[in-house]
């Protein structure tokens, strides 16, 4: 210990302290601060970039999920629409069928009515004709009777035959 104290050189202590503090202050300003700042910037940059990449990945996953969901929805919607369309078509077809049936029925009925009335008219016509013919025949018979009895008879027969034909 005594030797240590004897060895102690105040000059060396003075220079060591002075130079060390000077170097410390200079390095702090011109080296350590820029170096540590640069390293820290780089590290935070790397960290940010990694976080950004992670975020982008997550967003991408979200987007994929979203599109998947949309696609699914669209598919469901399409199915529904097709189903609806089919139903509508069937309904329309059924409606049209019903309507056509009704119309046809109506037309048939009208036709039947028309036929009936025509028939009635025709029968009435025939009746009138028959009456006229009867009258004519009667006239001719009467006229024939007045000329030739045989002929008159023949005529009557013919007339009756004609009527039969009708």
């Amino acid at each position: 210990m005594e030797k240590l104290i004897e060895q102690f050189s105040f000059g060396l202590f003075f220079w060591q302290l002075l130079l060390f503090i000077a170097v410390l202050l200079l390095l702090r300003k011109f080296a350590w601060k820029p170096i540590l700042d640069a390293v820290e910037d780089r590290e935070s940059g790397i960290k940010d970039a990694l976080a950004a990449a992670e975020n982008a990945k997550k967003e991408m996953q979200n987007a994929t999920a979203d599109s998947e969901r949309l696609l699914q929805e669209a598919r469901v919607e399409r199915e529904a629409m097709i189903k609806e369309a089919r139903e509508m078509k069937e309904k329309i077809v059924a409606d049209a069928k019903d309507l056509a049936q009704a119309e046809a029925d109506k037309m048939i009925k009208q036709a039947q009515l028309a036929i009936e009335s025509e028939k009635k008219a025709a029968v009435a016509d025939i009746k009138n004709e028959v009456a006229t013919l009867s009258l004519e025949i009667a006239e001719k018979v009467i006229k024939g009777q007045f000329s030739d009895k045989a002929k008159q008879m023949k005529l009557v027969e013919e007339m009756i035959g004609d009527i039969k034909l009708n």
Partner: protein
Amino acid sequence: MHGFFETDILSDMQKPFYVKVLLVVTLLLGINAFAQEKDHSSSEEKGSLKTEIKEFIGHHLLDSHDFTLFTIDEEKNEHVGFPLPVIIWDDGLKVFSSSKFHHGESVAEVDGNYYALYHGKIVKTDAEGTINYDEDHHATNVKPLDFSITKNVVFIFLVSALMLFLFGRMAKSYKTSALPKGIGRLLEPIVLYIRDDIAIPNIGKKHYKKYMSYLLTVFFFIWIINLLGLTPLGVNVTNNIAVTFALAILTYLITTFTANKNYWKHIFWMPDVPVFMKIVLAPIELLGTFIKPFSLMIRLYANITAGHVVLMSILGMMFIFKNWIGSPLSFGLAFALSLLELLVAALQAYIFTMLSALYFGSAVEEHHDH
């Protein structure tokens, strides 16, 4: 008296450098040819060689006022190196070149005052370089306040400049790119290690930022200067108690001045213990705050000093064995130890930083229920 002083300085200053050349050469070339040449030496010479090596190691551990790489001729006082400025305060600032001491051989005369080197320290003396001793054989000469740019101070300057250059460049490289370039690629993982594995776990995410500058500076400073100590330049700054004291006192001051209420409460009025224990614990805890940085100071100093002493002793053994088994063996040992010292250089920097962070962490620890 004069004669004693001269031989004393001689053995302290010059012969060691002579041995040092041998050490460096042996370390670099891995041979002990030179040692073999001296094989005919007598046991008497061997004894003096032992003392020489011991003195050289002792000298290596001390700071010096000149920068000598190696000695060419100790007799002619020829050294390769350069003198360093001496700055002393003795009734006013006195600045002169350390070449005036002629490697401790002569007395420097400045403004009518005489100064000499005694065990690496500048003492005031007379024209003959007289050193006075007390009963315990301590020099009683006046020691002026010495602010000299010694070899260690030169290396502190060098390391400071190197750190400013390296980390300045590293910081600049971030301006153009987010990734480090050049030397930054090597240094960034270490900087991040100190942040993520030393500062944040010990101090906490909330407060660590204000301590980062100190932790980083102290780590790289100790590490680089420890590594320089392993080069053949033969400098070891961190084995000076003054240097480790300066570093430890900074840790102490930062801890003390950034401490929160909770920290002081735990020192002076320990919660959740009986009142009697509170009174007993207060002085112990207070003493603990001084012991913590003190242990930092001693740990760094002792580890580096021990490493250097052991390494140099093993190197010195080569010159004592001087045979084909002992010298390669001690070379191998020295090599292995050098590798270990590389680890120790980093380890001590790590421990100093780690413990500083731990102390800062306790200073800013938030109150939590026990």
